C-alpha cells in the first residue's frame, strides 16, 4: 500500500494565507481589497483567490445553477472541487514560494451554506480536510438588518441559490434570502469559537476596520520576503 499523502490541511508553507468570511453585505470584500493594496505597496508578493472561480469547474457549477439541478450534496461537492482546483493550482504554489495569498471566502462559507442546506456538519468538515489551514481567518460580524439593507438596496436581482430558494423557505425570493442569510449568520457565530475566527466589528467605519485588519496581519508578516516596488510606480 502507498503511504497516505499528508493532506494539505496538515502541511505548513513559508507563505501566508489570509481569508475573509462573513454574510453578504458584511463588507469583507472591500476590506480584503484594501488589505491587498496595502500589502502590495509594502512590497509583498500577493496572490488573490475568489470563491467559486476555478475555470475548470466553473462551467459545471454554472450549468448546475442555471438548470437548478444541484442538490445540497452536489452543491457541496462541486464547490469543494472548485476550491481543490484553486488550492492545487493557485494557492499552494505561491505559498510554497513564500508569497501572501488572500482568499475572499474559504471553507467556512461552505460549512455555513452547506449545513444550512441540511448537509451533515461532520461530513462537510471532513470533506474539506484537503484545504490549507489559513494563517488567519477574519470574520466580519454584522447584524442581519444592516447587511440586508446594504445588499437589498444595491442589488437588482437575487439569484436562486444565493437566496436559498432551493430550501423552500419562502416563495418570495427576498424573504427567502433574509431567512437564509439569518441561518448562515447563526452558523458563522457558532464557528467563531470552533475555529478561532478573528472577529472584526463590521458596523464600524471602513477605515477603522482596515486599520485593525492591517495591524493584525502585520504581526504575522515577520520574516516574509519583500520585493520593494520601484519608486516610479508610486507616482504612476
Amino acid at each position, binding site marked *: *500500500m*502507498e*503511504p*497516505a*499523502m499528508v*493532506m*494539505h490541511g496538515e502541511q505548513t508553507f513559508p507563505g501566508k494565507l489570509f481569508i475573509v468570511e462573513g454574510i453578504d453585505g458584511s463588507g469583507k470584500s472591500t476590506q480584503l481589497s484594501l488589505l491587498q493594496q496595502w500589502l502590495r505597496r509594502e512590497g509583498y508578493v500577493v496572490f488573490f483567490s475568489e470563491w467559486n472561480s*476555478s475555470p*475548470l*469547474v466553473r*462551467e*459545471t457549477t454554472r*450549468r*448546475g445553477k442555471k438548470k437548478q*439541478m*444541484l*442538490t*445540497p*450534496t*452536489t452543491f457541496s*461537492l*462541486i464547490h*469543494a*472541487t472548485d476550491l*481543490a*482546483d484553486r*488550492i*492545487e*493550482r493557485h494557492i499552494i504554489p505561491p505559498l510554497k514560494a513564500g508569497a501572501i495569498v488572500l482568499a475572499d471566502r474559504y471553507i467556512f462559507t461552505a460549512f455555513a451554506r452547506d449545513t444550512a*442546506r*441540511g*448537509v*451533515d456538519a*461532520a*461530513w462537510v468538515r*471532513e*470533506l474539506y*480536510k*484537503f484545504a490549507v489551514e489559513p494563517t488567519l481567518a477574519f470574520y466580519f460580524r454584522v447584524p442581519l438588518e444592516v447587511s440586508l439593507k446594504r445588499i437589498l438596496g444595491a442589488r437588482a436581482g437575487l439569484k436562486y441559490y444565493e437566496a436559498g430558494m432551493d430550501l423552500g423557505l419562502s416563495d418570495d425570493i427576498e424573504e427567502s434570502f433574509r431567512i437564509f442569510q439569518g441561518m448562515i449568520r447563526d452558523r458563522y457565530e457558532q464557528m467563531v469559537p470552533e475555529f478561532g475566527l478573528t472577529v472584526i466589528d463590521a458596523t464600524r467605519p471602513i477605515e477603522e476596520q482596515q486599520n485593525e485588519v492591517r495591524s493584525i496581519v502585520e504581526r504575522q508578516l515577520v520574516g516574509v520576503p519583500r520585493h520593494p516596488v520601484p519608486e516610479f510606480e508610486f507616482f504612476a
Partner: protein
Amino acid sequence: MDGHRFEFYDTGLPGVDLSELQGRLIVIEGPDGVGRSTQIALLKPWLEANGHAVLDTGMTRSALAGKGIKQAKAGITLGPVSLTLFYATDFADRLENQMIPALRAGFIVLTDRYIYSLIARGIVRGLDPTWIKSFYGLALKPDSVFYLRASVPDLIPRVLGSPTGFDYWESGMDMHFGRDLFDSFVAYQTRMLGVFDSLAEEYKFEVIDATQRPEIIYRLLQRRIGQLLRRVEDRSSES
C-alpha cells in the same frame, strides 16, 4: 413490501427516505479493458426480457459533471484532489438523480463501476484513504458487487486491442508513473490491482476470474443475479 432495506455506508444523503427504495443495486467493478461493458450489454436485455426494468449507469455519465470532467481531462490539468472531488460530484449527481429515483420506482440499477474505482484511483494518486472513504459515506450499499479480476499481463492485450489503446488517465500518466504510456500503464494498473484486492476484502466483493471466456462469465453472472432476484420474488410472494 419485500422486507428489503437499503443502507448508506455512513452519513448518507440528506432528505432520502431509504424505506421508499424498492429496486436492487448491482455493481460491476474491474479495471479498464476487463470486459465490464460487454457483460452489462448482455445482462441488460436479459433482465428486461425477464420483466425487470433496468437502469444502467457509469462513470462521468452525470448530467451535471460528466461533461466538465471530460473537458478537464482533455486539457490534462486536474490535480489529484480536484480529480477525486470532481468524480465524487459526478457520482453524487448520478446517485441522487438517476440511481435513487430508479430504485424508488423498483428498477434494477446496473452500474458500470461504483465508488470503489473512485476510491482506488484516489488512493493510487497518494490521497488519504480515510478521507476519501469518509465522503463516500454518502453512497448506498449495493446488493452485490461483482469484481471482474484480471492480472496486468492479461489486461495489456485487451487494452491494445481496443480502438483507443492505452488511455492517458487509465495509465496514470498524470502521476508520472512511467516514462511512456506502456510503462505507466503497467505501474499504475499494478498499484490499482493491489488496492482493489484490499477493497475486495473490505467491501466483500464477489471476485470473478475475468480471464475466463465472456460467455462463461455471463452465465456465472446470470446465475448469481438470478439468485439475488429470486430471493426478492420469494419474499414478495410470501407476503
